[in-house]
C-alpha cells in the first residue's frame, strides 16, 4: 500500500477577483521509504504540492490519501494531529527556536507527542544528535551553530518522533555545496537506516543527484516522473 496517494489534486488561489491555479490535477503515489525529489522552476507549484502532502494546506479539488486515510475532510485540529504524529518538516531557513538549545529544539518535537519518560527522551534526543554529528553541541543555541549545523538540528527535530514522512522544502538553499552534500548524505543515511520516507522540493541539481525518484512539476502538472536505481 502506498503511503501517499494523490488523485486529481487541484489548488486554486484567489488573488482579489483573479483565480490563480497552482496545481492543475496531480495524480501521484509515493511508497514508504522512498527518497523523492520534486523539482521544477519557481512558481511551478512544488511548495504548494508539498504543503498539500504535509497537511498544511487544503486542496480545491481532488483527493489526498495519507497512510490509507483520506485527509480531505479533516478539520484544522485533526490535520494538526496528523502532522503531530506522522510528519516531520525541514525548512529552508531552519526555523529553529532561538532561545532554545539544540537539545531543546529537538526535544520540542518529541514533547508534543509526549509518550516517553524524561530519561528516554533525553537518551533519544542525545543519540539522534550524536547521529547527526552534534553530540558535543547539544547545549549550543542556534546562533552558536553554523548553517549546516542548524540544518542538522532541524533534521534531528524532524526525525526524533520517527515520522512516516519527512518533507523538506529546499533544505539546501541556504547552504554551501560542501555543507549541502553533508546534509543530503545525512538524510539519505537516515532514509536507509530508519526507512523514513523523504520528499524534497528543490531546484538544486545536487539534491536531484541524491534522489531515487525525480518528479518534475511544470505549470502545476507533473511533467516527468522518473525512478532511479
Amino acid at each position: 500500500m502506498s503511503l501517499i496517494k494523490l488523485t486529481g489534486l487541484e489548488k486554486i488561489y484567489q488573488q482579489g477577483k483573479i483565480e490563480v491555479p497552482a496545481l492543475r490535477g496531480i495524480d501521484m503515489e509515493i511508497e514508504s521509504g522512498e527518497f523523492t525529489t520534486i523539482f521544477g522552476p519557481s512558481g511551478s507549484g512544488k511548495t504548494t504540492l508539498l504543503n498539500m502532502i504535509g497537511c498544511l494546506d487544503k486542496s480545491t479539488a481532488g483527493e489526498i490519501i495519507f497512510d490509507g486515510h483520506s485527509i480531505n475532510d479533516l478539520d484544522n485540529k485533526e490535520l494538526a494531529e496528523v502532522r503531530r504524529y506522522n510528519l516531520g518538516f525541514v525548512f529552508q531557513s531552519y526555523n529553529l527556536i532561538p532561545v532554545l538549545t539544540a537539545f531543546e529544539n529537538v526535544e520540542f518535537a518529541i514533547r508534543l507527542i509526549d509518550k516517553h519518560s524524561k530519561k528516554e527522551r533525553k537518551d533519544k534526543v542525545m543519540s539522534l544528535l550524536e547521529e547527526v554529528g552534534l553530540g558535543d553541541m547539544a547545549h549550543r543555541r542556534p546562533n552558536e551553530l553554523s548553517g549546516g549545523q542548524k540544518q542538522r538540528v532541524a533534521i534531528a527535530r524532524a526525525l526524533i518522533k520517527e515520522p512516516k514522512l519527512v518533507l523538506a522544502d529546499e533544505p539546501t538553499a541556504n547552504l554551501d555545496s560542501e555543507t549541502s552534500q553533508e546534509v543530503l548524505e545525512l538524510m539519505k543515511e537516515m532514509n536507509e537506516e530508519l526507512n523514513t520516507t523523504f520528499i524534497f522540493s528543490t531546484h538544486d541539481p545536487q539534491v536531484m543527484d541524491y534522489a531515487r525518484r525525480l518528479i518534475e512539476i511544470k505549470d502545476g502538472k507533473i511533467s516527468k516522473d522518473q525512478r532511479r536505481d
Partner: protein
Amino acid sequence: MFFLRMAFKNLTRHKRRTIITALIIAFAILIYVMTDGLMLGMTEMSFDNIINLESGHLQVVDQNYWEDRKELPLKNLITPSAELEAEIKKTAGYVAMTKRLKFAVNLNNGIDELPVTGVGIDLGQDDKVFELQNYLVEGRMPEADSSEIIMGAKLAELMDFKTGDYAVMLIRTEEKTFNTIDGEIVGLFNTPHPSLNESNVFLPLSTAQDRLNTKGKISHYAVRLSDQNQALTAAEELSTRLEAPLQAYSWKDAAKSLVTMIEMQDIETQVVLAVILTLAAVGIINTVILSALERMEELGMMKALGMHEREIVYTFMGEAAGIGVIGGIMGIIMGIIGLSIFNINGIDISTITAGGDMTYGFPLSGTIYAGWEISSFIFVFIYGIIVSVLASIFPALWAARKDPVKAIYHR
C-alpha cells in the same frame, strides 16, 4: 512545564521590551500600593483619633439619644448610678470609664458668634479614657467645678481668643430657657482631630450640668477597653446586661459614616488600579502582537510540527504571566521602598491639602504615616499577573489562528 520554560525563555529575546512592559505594570502596582498604604494609614489614624478623642472604645447611651445625637439634644440623657457603673465595669477588657455631657453652644467673642459643641468632662476620669490633655499646646486643663474652659487653638484663632480671655457661651437649658457660661480660657489644644480643634469647647462636667440644669444627667459614658478589637463583641455583650433604653455602642458605630466613606474610598482605589492596569494591559497586547509578528515563521514551524492553537496560546499566556511576575516583583519592591521613605518622616497632611483644612472627610491632621498590609501586596501582585495573562489571550489567539503556510513563509 516545557512550554512554560520556553515562554519564560522567550522573555529574554527582547529584554528591553520585556522590562519596559513590566515597568508599566510595576508602575501601576506602585501607585496602588502607595495609595492603598496612604489610605490604610489615614484610616488607622482616623480610627485612633475617634477612639482617643471622641468616642472611646464604647459608649453607653440611651438609644433614643443615639439616634438624635448629632443634634446635641438634652433629651434622653442618662442618670449616672453606681449600679450602672458596676455593670459597665464587668465588661471584658474594661480599663476605665468617664462621663460626658455634650450640648450646643453659641460661642460669642463680643463681636461674632459661632455655633460649636460644648463638652462637659469628668476631670478626674477623662484622661483615663481620652487623650485630650496630651494635646494641650498652651495653658492647662480646667479646675473641677470651675467656669474654666479649654478650646482648640484653631477655634481660638478664628474667634480671636487667647488664654486668659473670657468667652461667652450661649446655651439653652433642658427646659429651653437661655443661659450663659462666662468661661475663662485656661488652655488651648491642638489635636490631630481637626473638627475637635475647630468646633469644641471643654469644661468641667459639674459646671455644664449646673448651667444646663440637667440635674446631674449626662449624655453618655465613654469606656476604654484593653483591646479595640474587642469593642464590637463587648458592646453587644454589655447591651444584653443593660436595661432598656440603655445601649452600648462600639467606636465603629460612632465612626459609621467614616467606615462607609472608607469603603467608598476602597472602591475608588480599586477603580484607579483597574484603570492603570488597563493601560498596562495595552502594553501587554502590544508586546504580544510584536512578539507574534517577529516570530511568525517560528509559529508556522510550531503549527507544522502539530502544535495546537491552544498550546500556542498557552505559550503566549505564559510569556505574559512572566511579564506580570517581573512587573509585580518590581512594583512590590518599588512600593516597599516608596512606603518606607513615606514612613521615615511621615508626610504633613497640609502638603496634600495645600495648607487648607480639608482632609477629605478624614478626622485627622498633622503628620500622617502609611499603613502596611501584606494582603494588599499579595492581591495586587496576583491581580497584575491576571491582567497580564487576560490581556494576552486575544493577541495570542490571533497569532495561533494564523494559517500555517502563511506563517511559515511570512506572507
